[in-house]
């Protein structure tokens, strides 16, 4: 076990612990209700969840794919999509300020917006 290996192990350990700390500090629940839906880095929808009625609607993407967005009781989630992995559907309801709902194949992001923009 020479010095290089020790250095590599320490580097990996620091990254690992640093990530855990980063997650703990960044993962706070939020009372923000302003949400925006971003596609290709353009905001295509933005609304106040506390005033929205329950509904579902589809967002088409450039390449012909779609995501079905569901708003229910002030919560937003992606209820269905035509992509193969369905990661965005499994993410469930948008809760965290830092972790958005992301659909990589359709370049779609649902996240909490800054309140000042309203």
């Amino acid at each position, binding site marked *: 076990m020479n010095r290089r290996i020790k250095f*590599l192990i320490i580097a990996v350990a620091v990254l690992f612990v640093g990530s855990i700390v980063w997650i703990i500090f960044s993962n706070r629940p939020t009372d923000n209700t302003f949400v925006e839906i971003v596609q290709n880095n353009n905001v295509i929808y933005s609304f106040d969840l506390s005033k929205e009625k329950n509904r579902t609607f589809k967002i088409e993407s450039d390449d012909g794919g779609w995501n079905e967005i569901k708003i229910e009781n002030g919560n937003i989630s992606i209820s269905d999509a035509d992509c193969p992995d369905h990661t965005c559907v499994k993410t469930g309801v948008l809760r965290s300020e830092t972790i958005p709902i992301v659909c990589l194949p359709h*370049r779609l*992001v649902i996240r909490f917006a800054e309140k000042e923009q309203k």
Partner: protein
Amino acid sequence: MKTKRLAELALLTAIALIIFIIELRIPNLVPIPGVKLGLANIVTVYAVYKYSAKQVAMVVFSRVLLGSIFGGNISAIIYSMAGAVMCLIGMLAVKRLVPVSFIWLSSIIGAILHNTGQIIVAIIIMRSFVVIYHYPYLIISGCIAGAFTGICAQIMIKRGLKGKSS
């Protein structure tokens, strides 16, 4: 000799593809894009320590290409490719420093670099930095998955050395 080597590499690619396709059937536990076990990388780690850089690159690239065609997720190929390239460069660089008994370490480094490559591509494609918030989760999953695949590869390589079969 050359034909034998080619057959070995083809066999490794086939094994990696089978593992990859079986792994697609395992449902993802964590709803974060990019988090997966990456069992097919057992073959990558094994190949890095057994063959030359060019030969490993051949195995990995054909596995990624065929894997995305067979897996039916061709849009994801750019993420897999970026991850594979980063992972390969990192592991080939680290290979000289890390002896066979620390393969798990170079596998972890490869896994972290793999996820780094994917995040970079995601930032470029989405033209936004939101995906960076997935990065700590990807590092942690990379450490765990990398350690697992690395230990598997280490066991296989040690057996190969003992048996002197290759």
